[in-house]
């Protein structure tokens, strides 16, 4: 497979065939925000945050799963793309609880980071919230599904990295939920052990380590604009 040429944000670049737009962009120092994407795993294409403008395409295309083609003309940060990404972040936050102030993930929350990066202002789209009881019986993991934004990283990681397939998806539409077993809380005697893979990958505070009081918070203090 030889190299192909394409235009990325007005600059001609060359890339090996079969690479995705996202990979090519990152190789050229362009940061496209992602949420469901995990390097080295098969793309999911669910969050849509990585969409870019490709000349000749009716819609925006997901850069994490679209391979580059010869002569492709790509805009990764056009005003149209940025506005769509802003709305997508707002939609992810639409049903996300406003508990950042007491959330353990607050300082290293990717949702908050992306919202800050994209200068998402006052939320325009608020919906009802999900109220799921916090699952805190297991000594290795705490799950708060109210905070889940359905990026499916935990599903992919448990399946592909740990080979355990603990999580799957159930229900549909707004009621879609990442479930454990046949949608029961993770109890204390479950197969789930302390591999921490999904906890490390969760972009929000939905999955976390059981916290003891007085424990130090992780990550640098986030600079919040505005």
């Amino acid at each position, binding site marked *: 497979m030889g190299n192909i040429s394409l235009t990325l944000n007005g600059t001609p670049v060359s890339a090996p065939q079969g690479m995705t737009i996202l990979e090519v962009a990152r190789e050229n120092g362009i940061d496209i925000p992602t949420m469901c994407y995990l390097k080295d795993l098969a793309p999911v*294409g669910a969050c*849509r945050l990585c969409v870019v403008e490709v000349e000749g395409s009716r819609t925006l295309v997901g850069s994490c799963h679209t391979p580059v083609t010869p002569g492709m003309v790509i805009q990764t940060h056009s005003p149209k793309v940025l506005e769509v990404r802003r709305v997508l972040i707002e*939609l992810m936050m639409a049903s996300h609880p406003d508990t950042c102030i007491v959330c353990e993930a607050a300082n290293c929350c990717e949702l908050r980071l992306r919202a800050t990066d994209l200068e998402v202002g006052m939320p325009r*789209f608020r919906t009802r919230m999900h109220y799921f009881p916090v699952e805190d019986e297991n000594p290795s993991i705490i799950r708060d599904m109210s905070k889940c934004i*359905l990026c499916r990283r935990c599903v992919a990681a448990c399946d592909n990295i740990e080979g355990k397939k603990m999580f799957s998806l159930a229900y*549909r539409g707004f009621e879609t939920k990442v479930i454990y077993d046949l949608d029961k809380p993770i109890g204390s005697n479950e197969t789930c052990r302390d591999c921490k893979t999904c906890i490390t990958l969760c972009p929000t505070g939905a999955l976390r380590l059981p916290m003891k009081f007085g424990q130090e918070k992780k990550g640098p203090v986030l600079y919040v604009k505005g």
Partner: protein
Amino acid sequence: MPQEKVVLRNCGAIDPADIKTHRAREGFKALEKARGMTPEEVISEIKTSGLRGRGGAGFPCGIKWEGARNSPGDEKYVIGNADEGEVGTFKDRYIIQNDPFSLVEGLAIAGYAVGARQGYIYLRWEYSYLLDLLRGAIDQARAAGYLDGFRIEVRQGAGAYVCGEESALMESVEGKRGEARYRPPFPTVAGLFQKPTTINNVETLMNVAPIVLKGGAWYAGMGTERSRGTKVFSVSGDVARPGVYEMVLGSPLRELVEGLAGAKDIKMIQIGGATGRIIPYDQIDAPLAFESYLGAGAITVYNRSRGVLEIVGRTMEFLAEESCGKCTPCRQGTEWLVETLDRFRRGEGAARDIGYMQVLADTMALSSLCGLGQAACSGLVDTLKYFRDDYDRGISGK
């Protein structure tokens, strides 16, 4: 322009449970003729005909078949999409009920042209009562020797609208959760079980036998430049004579709605079901063609007693319920729209939400993973344009 029966040629004229009555009307002659041609010749004939997909997207059928034919691989599949879930369509049910043999024949010709040894018919759960009839048609065709080297299996859906979308349909046939896949790769390259696959609507497959028998040029002689042949319409709503009508493409909408179906006092017409367009009465002279609006051919007529917000709100409730929940814009966006339209229906809407609805509609159309999310707001956007007063009346304090 009266009705022109190509797809519905045998409906009412044959016994759907008896292959002999079908054979008496040139049944399976097209399959025999196709097998005497090369697959490339069959595809070329379909391309000449200008037949486009009848499921709503209108993709040229011949190009689809050629794509799957030319994709590398020994194992290929053809699928007949009988998951007729679009709100207000019932044409495929009528077709299967009255002429299941022509569907089997069309799928067998598709299989021959593409090079598939296995075909599937994906039947929606709500049509379970057609299962015996359809299986009976397949068995009779097999017993008569028409399906040598080609196996047809009927798979049933489980009641999800989104499984009519081709990639979710394939996931469902594979036994997985019915969720849309990203494209590329397109089904013609990596479809069912990651093998080259064509998916055609029931009605598209019904057109195949006549095209093979009478030639693509005959078919291309009907219709408009970009919409060849005939189309079956399901007309319902505030009409005197609801039902299934087949017309040459390009016929005026007025002829169908007012002439054949006998609608009076029309306020607006929804064309293409829940994800379709809504047009006001003053556009009733639009032609029924891919150039204007068509979708899967669902025509729902509303008279002046109907409220715009109620129709758009209920449509959105349906789409929110049926969204697979995979991609953010569709899952979250439909929910916000349901809640917002509900506020407008109660007269508690906020003026700025009208602008937000437009912003959200653009985002959903641009970034959703499949056609459901991309087209979910078409009716909303149309009514915001043509019936803005109805929305303004829903604003709190007005």
